[in-house]
Each structure stands twice: as C-alpha cells, then as structure tokens.
C-alpha cells in the first residue's frame, strides 16, 4: 500500500471541509489551501507530497499556456502592457531595495522583489469574474494586466532558475528557453493537428496527448536544466485550442489541474515552519508593500494612461496580492538552496494574507475608492473630469443621460439625435469615449458610479436617464441619484428587473425576456413547418442577411424582428 494515500486523504478531506465552510464567504481557494497546509503540517511528513506538488506546478503553468493564444501576445492592449511593466519595475525595484535594507543578499532580494511585484491571476481573475464577464473596463484591465504579468513571471523564472548567474549562464538559459518555445510553436503549427486527426474523436486519447506533450516538454526542460515552469509553459503553447474537440481537452485538463494544484498549495503551506520574528517582520513588510504601495503605483500608472480614477482604483484592488508564480519561484528557490527557509516562510505567509486582504479590498472597493478620492492624491477628480470631457456651453435642460456608449448606448444616442433631443453620454472606456466624442458634442468621461461625474450631468433638469450596462450596483446607484427624470435600466434577469422597478425605475430592459416572447412563436412555427429543416435554415439565414443590409447597421438587426413602429 502506498504510503502517500494517507497524506493525500488528509489533504483532500481537510481541504473539502474548509472549502465547504468557506462557501459562505467570497474567499478564493488558494489562500484556503495554504492555510489548510499550515494546519495539517503536523499530520503529514514534511515534503512527502512534494513530488505530486510538482505536478501541480506543471499543470498550473501548462493550463495557463494552453489558454495563452500566441495571437494575444500581439494584440494585448498597449495600456496594460505599459501598466504591468511600470508596476513590476517600480514595485520590484522598491522591493529589491527594501529587501537589501532588511539584510538579504542580492539573490534573495530578487526573490523578495518578485513576490512583491507579481500579482496572482488565479485569485484576481476569480474575484473579478463578474466584471470580466460584463466586460467592464476594469474587468478587462484586470484580465489583461494579469496576463501580461504572468508572461513576465515565466521570463523571470527562466532567468532566476539559471544555475549560474554569469552573463553567459543567463544568456544560455534564455537561449534554451527561446529554443523550447520555438519547438512548441512548430508542434502547434504542424504536428498538433495530426494528433487530433489521428486520435479520431477519442477524448481519452486527446487528453493523454496533452499530458504526453506536457511530460515531453518537462523532460526536455530537465535535460536542458531549465525550470519545469518553462517546460510546462512551452507545452501549453504547443497545444492549439482551435480544433473540434477542444472542449473535451480543456475540461479534462481542468479536472487534473484542480487535483494537483490543491496538493501543490497545501504542500506549500505544510512546508512553513513555526514563524520567527524575522519571518513575521519580512512578511509584514511584504504585505504592507502589496496592500498599500502596489495599488498606488497601479492607480497612478492607469490614471497616467488616461483612465478615470475609479476604474484605476477598482483595477488595482484585483491586483493587490502575491502571485502563484512567485510561490512556484519560492519553492524552487528553497529546494535549490537559493533562499532561506525564513524568506520562504515570509513569502508564503504574506501570500496567504494578501490573497485574503485582496478579497476584502475587492469587496469594499467602492468605500475604498471614496477614501482614495477624498485624499486627492491622484489630483482632483473634478478637474480631471472637466478637462477630459466635452461639456456644453450652457447648462443642459430636458435632456437624456445615456450611460455607456456600446452598441445599445450608441443606438439610443442616434435615436435622440434623429428626434432632436439633447443628449449627454457618460463613458469610462477611453476608446469608446473617443468614438462618442467624434459624433457628439456633449460627453462626460468618467465612471457613472462616481459622484463627481454626476455634477456635470445636470441630472436635476434631465428628462430621462438610460443606463445600458446590466450591472446591478450601477443600476442601484442611478436610482439613488436625486432627479425627477424617468429612469430606464437594464438587468440580466426578470427578478432583478422587478426589484429595480419596485425601487423606482420607470422601465427595465431584460434582454432575454424581450427575446423570449417572439421566440416562442418562431419555435412553434419551426416545429410544425411543412418545409424541410434545410429550407428553413436557408430561409432564416437569408432573412437575417436582408435585414442587415436593409438597415445598413451591422450588429443591429436580426431576423423576424418586431417592426419598429408596432
């Protein structure tokens, strides 16, 4: 009987109990796993699960690599690239200096600085899931900054993993790393399709191929004396997501990743020894830097790039924690004898702590934002808003306030203009704002959930407020604004809509609800139709095309739409 079964049983049963208790709270799983590890360390022999934990690292990075489409490297918005770079540079250098002041040697200081600079995409993306899905500006920023940071992390691991820190040694390391990536890209382009074709539709075989590629690259990394992180990343790159049965592969990998990363994070926690004052001091410094310095740097960099303070602040609250890549680095450093046990402990403790504080800053983001705004350290928001917005010469009256200039927002603005109704647009995405300004005289740049922005909207004299994002907190905010204007909101489901109407909204637009009425008729017609399915398909397709070309607005019309004037 394997001696590993008992420790694994302890790991999973404890983790399950803790996760179950935590379902009431919004905490992400990673810090919980680390805490479980710290808790169970007396029960399991140190390092016994280490071999399995390595597979956790491998799968973690591998899955990141699989999801990282190379085409994205080229199209990442320049802003997040800059912000990520500035953040890593400023926080990293500060961290490095502080670490030296704390008496660490240069190599250890580099580990310390990395831990301070990199943020956890696992935690950040889990927290900001809703915003990313709603495609809100700070959700988008969070996602892309994390992505760029993770790429940096792989590079840093490549360099720090070098066994010899001479210029030649690092250059060789980088050379091998690039070589592996090239092999991966060649496999991606030429070989992977062949595998997919050969596997037929066997989910099992395609999953095994994925794992085989991972293992192959890990072996190659080992031969070249590179970190397994680099191997795992290259393996991820070698897999393209664009094939028919990709969903099977992706969900299979998710399961295996969940299994091994749980072991990995618990193992990390279990390696922490009883903290000394030295450890605690270092951990406190790290936490302070991450919770206070990092958000300030991020906000400053984003505001400098032209984002409004609120979006910048909210983005920074999904970036204020230690990255899982820093943890991978820490354990490699510990095993290779490059960093001391106490630094490792400090990084681990700080990681668990910041992942939890990050949940808190995210939960209270609006309160924290108000606090930041009041300090005025990023310049007076009022002045900035005034400077960037296109304001009317005289106060507006009987106007329509449109929040959001997406597809829906822009078409609403168009209707108002056709009917000569004065309109003001509120938008906080710089790109969309530019678009709005090109066509309209009055546009306010800023977040509709910021009090300052409303000072420019003359809400008390407005006829109507139309809010287009289906974001509940925004809807509630709009309802709280003092105005006699009618309010049209948007919601994702009918229950929320009814609540908003009860709270004072004139009308709430529920996309699915509007579609459903007409959908039922179409369905009955389809089922009972005498014509063959293929004819129906052709017919519906033609209808859609016609409507699109009739209206001249691609993205606005569908087939069988209710007539505009009905």
């Amino acid at each position: 009987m394997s001696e590993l079964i008992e420790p694994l049983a302890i790991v999973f049963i404890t983790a399950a109990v803790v996760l179950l208790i935590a379902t009431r709270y919004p905490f992400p799983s990673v810090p919980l796993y680390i805490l479980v590890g710290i808790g169970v360390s007396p029960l399991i022999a140190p390092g016994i699960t280490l071999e399995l934990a390595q597979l956790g690292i491998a799968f973690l990075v591998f899955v990141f690599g699989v999801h990282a489409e190379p085409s994205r490297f080229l199209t990442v918005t320049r802003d997040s690239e800059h912000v990520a770079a500035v953040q890593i540079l400023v926080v990293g250098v500060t961290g490095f200096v502080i670490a030296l002041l704390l008496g660490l040697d240069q190599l250890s200081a580099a580990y310390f600085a990395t831990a301070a600079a990199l943020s956890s995409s696992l935690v950040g993306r889990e927290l900001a899931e809703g915003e990313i899905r709603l495609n809100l500006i700070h959700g988008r920023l969070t996602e892309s900054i994390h992505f760029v940071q993770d790429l940096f992390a792989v590079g840093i691991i490549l360099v720090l993993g070098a066994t010899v820190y001479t210029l030649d040694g690092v250059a060789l390391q980088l050379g091998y790393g690039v070589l592996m990536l090239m092999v991966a890209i060649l496999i991606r382009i030429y070989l992977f399709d062949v595998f997919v074709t050969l596997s037929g539709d066997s989910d099992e075989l395609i999953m095994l191929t994925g794992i085989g590629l991972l293992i192959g690259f890990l072996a190659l990394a080992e031969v070249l004396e590179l970190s397994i992180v680099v191997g795992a990343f290259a393996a991820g790159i070698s897999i393209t997501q664009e094939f028919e049965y990709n969903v099977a592969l992706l969900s299979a990998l998710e399961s295996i990743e969940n299994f091994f990363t749980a072991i990995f994070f618990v193992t990390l926690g279990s390696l922490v020894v009883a903290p000394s004052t030295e450890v605690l001091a270092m951990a406190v410094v790290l936490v302070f830097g991450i919770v206070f310095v990092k958000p300030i740097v991020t906000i400053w960099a984003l505001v400098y790039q032209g984002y409004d303070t609120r979006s910048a602040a909210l983005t920074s609250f999904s970036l204020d924690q230690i990255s899982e890549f820093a943890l991978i680095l820490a354990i490699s450093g510990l095993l290779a004898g490059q960093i001391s046990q106490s630094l490792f402990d400090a990084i681990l403790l700080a990681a668990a702590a910041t992942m939890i504080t990050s949940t808190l800053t995210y939960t209270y983001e609006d309160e924290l934002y108000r606090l930041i705004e009041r300090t005025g350290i990023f310049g007076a928001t009022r002045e900035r808003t005034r400077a960037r917005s296109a304001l009317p010469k005289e106060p507006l009256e009987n106007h329509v306030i449109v929040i959001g200039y997406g597809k829906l927002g822009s078409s609403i603005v168009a209707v108002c203009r056709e009917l000569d109704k004065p309109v003001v647009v509120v938008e906080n995405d710089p790109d969309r704002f530019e678009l709005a300004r090109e066509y309209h005289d009055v546009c306010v740049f800023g977040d509709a959930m910021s009090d300052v922005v409303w000072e420019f909207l003359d809400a008390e004299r407005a006829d109507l407020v139309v809010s287009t994002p289906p974001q509940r907190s925004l809807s509630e905010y709009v309802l709280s604004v003092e105005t006699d204007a009618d309010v049209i909101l948007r919601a994702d489901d009918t229950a929320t809509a009814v609540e908003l109407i009860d709270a004072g909204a004139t009308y709430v637009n529920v996309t699915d609800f509007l579609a459903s009425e007409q959908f039922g008729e179409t369905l009955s017609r389809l089922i009972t139709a005498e014509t063959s399915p293929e004819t129906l398909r052709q017919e519906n397709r033609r209808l859609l095309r016609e409507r699109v070309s009739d209206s001249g607005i691609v993205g606005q019309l569908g087939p069988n739409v209710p007539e505009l004037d009905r």
Partner: protein
Amino acid sequence: MVEGTVTIAADFALIILTAVALGYLFRLSGQPTIVAYIFTGIVLGPVFLDVITEGQLVELMAELGLGFLLFLLGLKLRIDDIREILRPVINIAVWQTVLQTALAFAVAYALGFDLLQTTIIALATVFGATPIIVKVLADKDELTSLPGKIDVGVLILQDIYLVVLLAVLSAESFDDPSTIAVNIGTIFLLMAGIGAFSYLAARYFLPQLFRAVAGDREAFFIVGIAWAFLFIHGSMELNLSIEVGAFLAGLSLAQVQYTSELTERIRPLTDLFMVVFFSSIGLRISADDLFAFWQEAMIASAALMVGNFLIMFFLIDYENFTPETSFLGSLNMVQVSEFSLVVGALAVSQGFIGEPILGYLSLMAIVTMGLSTYLIKYNHQLYDLTESVWARFESDDKQDVELKTYADHAVVIGVDDVTEPTLSVLHEKLGDVVIVDRNPSISDRFADTPYDVIYGDFKHGELRKEAGIGRAAVVMSSSVQPEINELAIRESSEGAIVIAEADSVEQALDLYDEGAHYVTLPTVLAGLKIRTYLTQYIRDRPAFLRAVEDDVDRLRQSAGTTRSSGVDPRRFDRGGESDV
C-alpha cells in the same frame, strides 16, 4: 526536507509517453486503449526494454488508478437505469457467474493447473470487460438498446460480486478454515458497516452537502474527491482493500442528483491514473512469466470466448428475448475483463499464485479484449451473416421489452428567460424534454415537472450521449458560447432542428453557415425594442408609460413563475452577453 531541484519522475514520464505512442497505434487498428496501456507496461518492463523501476509516484498512481476506477464504477451504478429489466438481468447474471466459473474452472483444470491456481483463474476470468463494452457500445450509440442494457445490468451485478471477491481475497490470513470463516465474516460485517454508513449518508447528508458546493466548480470537485479518499482511507484503516471503499463511496454518491457532472469531472483524472495502473500490471510480468503458459492461454481464450457466448446466449434466450437480442447481448460479453488482472495481481501479492499465472491471465485478457472489440464493432453484420443459425430459436412467445429511450425528443441546453417559456410548447409537440444545465438550482426547480434534467456541463461528451442528442428532433441552446452551439449542431442528427442563441449578427451568420436552423439574437431584439420605446418616449410620453406598464406586468408574472434559486445566478451566466 527534500533536497535538490524540482524534477519529474523518469518512470512516470516514460510510462505516459509510451502509452501515448501506443495509444495512437492501437487506436488506428481499432483496439481499445486499455490493451495499449497493458502493452505499455510489457514494453517498458522486463519483457522487452526493462527500463523502469517503479518509484513512489507510479506506485501511488497505480493504486489510485484502481481506486478511482472502482469509484467511477460505483458512481455510474444507478439501479434505475435497468429497473425495467431487473428480474431477467438478475437471473442472467447469477447463472452466468455460476456457469462461467464452472466453465473456466473446467478449462483451467483440464489444462493442468493445480487446484488453487484453477480456483483463482476461474474466479478471475468470469467478468466481462466493462470499459470495453461500455466504450464500444457508447461509440455506436447502442448502450441504451436492449442488448446493451442487459449487458450493462449484468456488468453492474458482476461489479458487486467483484468487490466482495476482492475483499475476501485481500483478507490477511487463510491459514485454516476457521480463520478463513472468521475473516470473511469480519469482512462482510465491515462492508455492511460501510455500506450502511454510505446509505445513510446518501439519504440524509450528501444531497445537502453537494447542494452547498454545486455552485462552485472547484469546491464541488474537491468535495467529491475528498469523499472518495474518506472511504479509501477508512477501508485501509479497517484492513479492507481500498477498492471496496472506493466502490462504496461511488455507490453512495450515485444516488445523489448531481452525480452526472461529478462523474465527468472525475473521469479525466481516472483515465490518467488508469494508464499508470494498467501499465504497472504489465511491468510486473517478466518475459518468462508472460509466455510460460502461452499455449494454455490461447486454448483457454478460444474455449472461453465460445463457451461464454453460448452460456450468455442460452441464458438471455431463456428469458424469452428475441434471438437477435440474445445474440448481440452475448457477443458483447465474450472477453476476459481487466479485472481478471486486478484479481490476479491481488492473488499474486497474497501468495496464492505465482507470476506466471498472472502472465497467463494477462495474455488471455489481451487476446480476448482485442478480438472482442472487433466482434462488438461488427455485431450487426455478424448477426446478419449467421441469422439462419439462430432462426430456430425464433418463437412467438419471445419478444423484446419496450425500453424507454429518448427519441425524437427535445434537448434544451440551459434554461433561461428565453428558453423557459418554450418548454411547455416542446413538451406538447414532442413529448420528452431533456434539459442539460449546469446550474444546480435548475434540477431542483424542475424536479416535479415532466421535464428531465441532467445536471452538468454540456461540454462533457457522456452527458450529451445521456441526453440522446443524436436522436433528438429539436436541439435548443440558450448559450451564446460558439463552442457550445457548434457542439450542438455537430452532434445532432441530419433531420433535427437546431436553434441557437447568438450575441452578434456575425456570430449568428456563422452559426447558420454551420447548420443552425434558427438563431435568435436577444441583444439585438432588445436593442430594437429600446429604440422603439425611446422614440415613443420622446414623441408621446404618456403613451410610452402605458406601453411600459403592460411590459412591467408581464415581467412581474414571469419573475413570479421562474424564480426560486438561492444560488447566485451570476456564477452560471453564459457569458458575453453584455457588450451592448
């Protein structure tokens, strides 16, 4: 503290890479992957290359492979699935076990094995190979046909027998009859204890437990794994085999409504561990051992394949099914199962038999599995060829049971405000409506309705088969994810009507091109409606307010009928609909 850098175990790497390579080779020749995995062990082990020394990682994964295999087996064991034919299936399974054990015993004894060896061989070779039968039949979409159901039913009962056998064989001492009796008694008592615990858990505890975590993908999965480990570890502590624990863990979960999703989440992990497990069996055998009894193995394979077929045929025929059903049902079951290796390996470690017998069992398993894959694949052709032979079994008394399978039904992927109002229309026009949804509150909400709900992600192939998507008349998706809609289009039959949802006109046109018959565009429709309202508002505000009032009433009605979940709906959103 472990010193050194982070590395991956060489033995594990070799096993995986070889298994992938052989997997492709066997796949191309139409062979099941299990045979490839056993070959992996044989190639890497003493028989050919002899390059592997089993490390800790491989040892653990092999053990977990077996454990999780049985966990999964337990998870899939739903008596409901075979309730309609339960009585004939029990008759068939019991007699089949008895007769096949006797046959295997007679063959082995005649081939000159001693009594103990013969007993082990007879016990080991009675099982049908579940993974092969289920896999090949599922690929042909015959799993829910009558012969398929009979086979699955027999296999389920065999699995229960297997678990008992494993428990008994792993007993600590077999020195004299009285200790054997005491041991077996203890084992049954312990198993009954665990069984009672798992029954009570399934009844009173598990549903709430899984409802609490069903909203969180990761927690859901970890809790499922922890449940398996709880039983595995528990039975280890009680000196039972871990397989027994794992099986009972799965069995208790099988009765909970969220199992279908859990099964699909655990399967990839099991697949990975199974590779290591079956390879490790091959690894244990040396060349001498593998071929020690090769002639006997060939003779026994031939004898058992023919014998098992005849036994099954007469048993099914005796239950008054048609000859075709009897033929297909028995042709599927002619192979020796991978469990013969499990039983054999256990018997080796207990000292009942030597390695050469394990080699003999492996050879039989490989040969019969390899051959039977082709037999199952071409079962209908074989029947047509030999129909005249079976015609004599034709009689008026014999007829097949009508099974409830989904056909010409509706599959609804995800219930939302768009699709929900149409459910009654679908039910009225088509009959069966199967909903696949990964929001756990949906299955609670529709528990007392005529609609069947499968809890899980449509991305899992097995769930799509369970919903019978290939036989559906209407497939309706409320997802705007292109990959989901593409799956729906690809897997539905030629004549089916596929209705999908899209986010943009471009996406809708793509879906039409791929074969969707109707694509609804909620965001576009909503946008048009808002434009209409706005025009009205600006021109004639009172008229707008009246129009809106009607709408609000309908909203209230709809909200009143469709709401009930305590789960945060945002977590299950289909994503991407907001960029409007």
